[in-house]
């Protein structure tokens, strides 16, 4: 039971980490290597608000969501649109966006080092709570709750709203989406901005229980990448399922075998998925 609950909570953390990049890469087709930095930026905002004026991270969220949305929308409109327009095919956009966002990640790290080069660590809701005889930290549980909420909202939005349908259409095939009258640039900007906000929200929540620093973003980008490739690029359900599997397996291995093997086990499942279902758990085969 301990394993199930701890594993689900860790999986929830991974859901938070992966959903933002999934929208940015899957829909806007921007392989955003600065996604982890956006997450750390959210964490820094939360840490800073908490330490300087004792503002609850949950209140910081209200501030961070619109700021991150606008910030990411501007990044897409100003910095990435030129790349999208000049790209002749998908591969070129991918290479260009990797290079551009890689540079962007350095800029963001530099800014954060200048703001606060030390660890972002504080205590928020670090209280034990017992669920089904298993002790868990309240801050992790809150983050899990938000992961469920954000995941559910995204799934509902994508599947039951007009804008969501347009987003899915762009994710499947940008060229054909344009033919049926979808403004691909606008939808991509929207997806990119929503993705950036999700990453920043993840940062706020994760900072309540993991100690971060300005340059840790790349670790989150890598984890997110593994999860969305496992789940199927652009598929929100796939990312959620993959994140939960990863959380459960890592906790299972850490508890029953050895905590030293968690990373190895994560890469092992990743390899297995790539071997037997290279398009991802929920991905469609390329035609």
């Amino acid at each position, binding site marked *: 039971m301990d394993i199930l609950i*701890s594993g689900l909570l860790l999986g929830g953390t991974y859901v938070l980490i992966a959903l933002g990049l999934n929208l940015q890469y899957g829909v806007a087709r921007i392989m955003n290597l600065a996604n982890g930095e956006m997450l750390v930026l959210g964490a820094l905002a939360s840490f800073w608000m908490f330490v300087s004026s004792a503002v609850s991270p949950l209140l910081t969220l209200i501030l961070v969501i619109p700021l991150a949305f606008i910030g990411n929308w501007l990044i897409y409109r100003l910095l990435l649109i030129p790349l999208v327009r000049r790209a002749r095919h998908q591969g070129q956009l991918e290479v260009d966006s990797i290079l551009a966002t890689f540079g962007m990640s350095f800029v963001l790290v530099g800014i954060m080092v200048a703001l606060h080069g030390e660890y972002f660590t504080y205590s928020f809701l670090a209280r034990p709570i017992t669920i089904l005889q298993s002790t868990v*930290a309240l801050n992790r549980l809150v983050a899990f709750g938000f992961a469920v909420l954000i995941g559910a909202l995204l799934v509902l939005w994508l599947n039951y709203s007009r804008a969501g349908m347009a987003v899915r259409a762009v994710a499947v095939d940008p060229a054909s989406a344009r033919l049926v009258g979808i403004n691909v640039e606008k939808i991509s900007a929207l997806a990119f901005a929503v993705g950036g906000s999700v990453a920043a929200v993840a940062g706020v929540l994760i900072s309540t229980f*993991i100690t*971060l*620093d*300005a340059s840790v973003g790349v670790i989150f980008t890598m984890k997110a990448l593994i999860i969305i490739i496992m789940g199927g690029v652009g598929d929100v359900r796939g990312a959620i399922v993959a994140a939960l599997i990863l959380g459960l397996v890592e906790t299972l291995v850490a*508890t029953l075998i050895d*905590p030293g093997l968690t990373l190895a086990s994560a890469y092992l499942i990743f390899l297995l998925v790539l071997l037997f279902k290279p398009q991802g758990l929920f991905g469609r085969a390329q035609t």
Partner: protein
Amino acid sequence: MFKIISANSIRKGFSALVVVTLTTLLSFTAHAADPIKIGAVAPKTGPLAGGAAVTQWPNIELWVKEVNARGGLKLKDGQRMLELIEYDDKTNPGEHIKAVQRLATQDKVDFIVAPYGTGFNIAAAPIYAKYGYPQIAVSAISDKMDELTARYPSLFFTLGTTTAFVNGVKDILAGMRDSGKIGNKIAMVNVADAFGIELAEAARPIFKDAGFDIVYDKSYPLGTPDLSPVVKGAKAAAPDAFVAWSYPPDTFGLTEQAIIEDLQVGAYYTAVATCFPAFGQKFGSKIDGVFGAGGVNPDTEEMQAYFKRHKEMTGKDADYWASANTYVSLQILEQAIEGVGDVDREAVTQYIKDNSFDTIMGEIKFDNQISHKFWTVGQWQDGVFRGVASSNMDGVAEIKEKSGWN
């Protein structure tokens, strides 16, 4: 048309001439008191940046500001100010070596502050030795010191050996066991990184020889997002003492989990960053009685003055361990340069070997390039992290009994 152009170019030519003359004059006057160039290479980004931002960079800043505030270092040919040139090694040894090379050949600095981190001090030792820079290593703990100092004549160590650190912990635990405060079951975990692995390997035989029973012994990868399985596992083994050879993010993470799981042990130890002011701020009174690597004697006049200056000049609190040692290494460099009266690196290195130095941690001298004066274990006692075990330090505090996590 032509006239205008020629008038313009004459004016341009004239102002260029003025600029040239001024620069010549300036460089000529500056020449009399060229600053002493000090290089510093340490992480500003990457995994070790958070620690360097607490322990390394503020002390360099403090030292340079202090020396310049009193007019520079006193040499034979008058006082000379310090000029600091900083590079980020991105927590990458390759980058570090490149930066040192640049400092030596392009910037032509007179001295370089030793690197941050054990691996970096060892990996970069050949390049410091090649250019003859004295390397007074602080943040470096190793059992290979004799071998290294024999190979690199300008390398000095100040923070102690792996074995000394483990023995510090062992002595504390054995003392508590012999006075009946704890039993002899230890749960030990370590971060799967050179530092954690070396300490865990040194600790296994030392704990066993001291009659302890290691009931839980696991490692976890650096950056593990969820340490609850580790703490749950340790708790299930019902230990009397918990020892973690940990790095900063996991020192915070393990302790938070230990509080959440209510891990009841008579002695709780985490390694690096337990001594950080941020650790005390995060956990408040809950961590009273927690042991950690390092320590200080905060009661001496020198240390109190140092803490005050550190806060005033850098805006940050010094940590309760290697901050002071880092500052001491710069005091040693300063006194050696002034003692020689010149920026001759070979003479300064020899001066460091032959003399003793008056520092904020008392008198320091090197025995075969190694200082044997350092703290090994500290304990949080009423909001201050006091040294409770040391090698040759004065003012070792009494151990306080830990009573739960409140």
